[in-house]
């Protein structure tokens, strides 16, 4: 593998990293919820993709709506039953709640789907596009495409619609938004469902070329955390670019160093950002 290949692969997988990070960042930006169960939802999305394809031969691009709906419903349920009472401040209780939910999702998935890693053989997943000395599977390219489209759609939703403005108003100052007559709880419910729908979507495209097993969920969390901090906690487009950076750094480290430690430079990157630019690439420095 050469460097150009690493960059290409990194960018492609980085797109999917970006996709699940924007959901995570959205939940934090709007509700200050650090959802450690986010990776669990990604993992469930992967199983949705897997079973849709294996059981009924539904093409993966068709299973996307299924993943979105399943993720959205799960998100709404989680929000109403658990997260609603922890909106506004990332307290110890909230973080622990999320970790507990993540653990429970993982164990339940293990009971339902078994502990072993499973992967799909999609029709176009094993075909490769060759560009000079580089190659990329069609599945990766399609996943990247979905990620870019979804990110743009979320950006458009947040900045171009009434609902998006309401969400951003609640994110800025829930109290003030309440005075203007916005129903913060309902808007949060929508935003959290969207966050989980995006997670499941990311899972359903990730599974086209990445094997799924229950621990994958927690395994993906560091990337979401790092991408989000690099991009600027709470920023959607920041999280997407953060995801791209994570993908590239990881693949380059894997090529130039060793796959076993491909994530270690990411951890270093996080610490560097925290030390030098804690508000990230797209965040605003706070007043303090």
């Amino acid at each position, binding site marked *: 593998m050469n460097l150009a290949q690493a960059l290409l692969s990194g960018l492609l997988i980085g797109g999917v990293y970006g996709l699940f990070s924007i959901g995570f960042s959205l939940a934090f930006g709007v509700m200050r919820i*650090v959802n450690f169960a986010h990776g669990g939802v990604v993992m469930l999305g992967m199983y949705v993709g897997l079973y849709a394809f294996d059981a009924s031969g539904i093409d993966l691009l068709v299973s996307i709506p299924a993943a979105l709906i399943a993720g959205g419903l799960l998100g709404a349920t989680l929000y109403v039953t658990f997260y609603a009472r922890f909106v506004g401040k*990332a307290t*110890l209780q909230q973080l*622990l709640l999320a970790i507990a939910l993540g653990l429970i999702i993982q164990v339940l998935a293990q009971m339902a789907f078994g502990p072993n890693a499973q992967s799909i053989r999609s029709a176009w997943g094993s075909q490769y596009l060759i560009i000079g000395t580089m190659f990329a599977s069609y599945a990766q390219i399609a996943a990247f495409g979905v990620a870019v489209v979804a990110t743009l759609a979320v950006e458009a939703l947040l900045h171009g619609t009434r609902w998006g403005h309401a969400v951003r108003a609640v994110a800025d100052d829930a109290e003030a938004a309440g005075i203007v007559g916005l129903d913060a709880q309902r808007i949060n419910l929508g935003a959290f469902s969207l966050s989980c729908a995006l997670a499941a979507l990311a899972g359903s495209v990730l599974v086209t070329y990445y094997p799924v097993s229950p621990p994958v969920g927690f395994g993906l969390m560091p990337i979401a955390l790092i991408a989000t*901090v690099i991009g600027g906690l709470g920023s959607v487009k920041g999280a997407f670019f953060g995801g791209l950076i994570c993908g590239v750094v990881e693949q380059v480290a894997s090529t130039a160093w060793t796959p076993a430690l491909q994530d270690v430079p990411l951890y270093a990157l996080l610490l560097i950002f925290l030390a030098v630019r804690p508000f990230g690439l797209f965040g605003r420095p706070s007043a303090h």
Partner: protein
Amino acid sequence: MMTRFSFNWIGIACVLAVASLPAWPFSDSYIVAAVIRTLIFIALGQAWNVIAGIGGQLSLGHGVFFGLGAYATAILFNLWGVPPWIGVWAGMLAAALVAVAIGGITFRLRGVYFALATVVISLAFEKLARFFVDLTGGDAGFALQFLGDSWWGLQSREPTPFLWPALALVVGYYMLTRWLLRSRFGLELQAVRDDEDAATAAGVAVFRTKLMGLLLSAVMTALVGTLHVQFYLTIDPGNAFGLFQAVQIQLPSLIGGLGTAIGPVLGGAVMIIANEATNWASSRFDVPGLDVLAYGGLLLFIVIRAPEGLSGPLSAMLRRRPR
């Protein structure tokens, strides 16, 4: 007055009962070992409680300090023959250095940055421990060279000799926490926990306070790590640095009562009973992951139903009694 007095006597009676455990008729090495496990568990909870409960800084990666204590002692012993009573200092020093690095970077920031950094750092250590096989034994972990009964290596065939140091540690940490809650440093930590801006306005050096709190907690945790590895004679990356370990460290204080002296002690005792029950159940019904499910469910229950832990209602009960 009356209640505080009797409360202390109950405590002393419990300590004496545990200390004399090996002499009791029904006691055997299985029971003694279970009690030592509980004590280690409690001590970890007490150490975490210092920074998270009293200082309000949400460390989700305390496994790092625990793992550093355990690995430093074990590696020094196996590879260079350095005895644990010297290795323990190396472990505490390593934990202190990492604490200063994490705190130095994140404590100038507010909010979740510290929590996120601790998660990520513990994962980094887990990866590194799995990779550097020569040093750490990799995935399989690390077994301490066994010398049999040895003062030099602080090892023993029987669990009993570990009972008293473990008990002393728990009692020591309990006294330390009680002192901390009333001392200047502890009041500063609590002020920072309650409101950083107000603490600054009261003249508290917030950054320094958080850093010292983490330092103390990290060193306390590393010391337990050493005891752990001497007792179990083995340590592996998941056990040392993993997320599950980090959650386990938090449970005693959460169950017993965050930021109190008695909380982690009560919580740890309750936890170990739950632990034994799930172990029994998962082997009986052959459902892997039942213990994780139980921990998850317990965590969920505490967070939602009993955020104050056991000591909240308990101390309210004790306070009501005299009237």
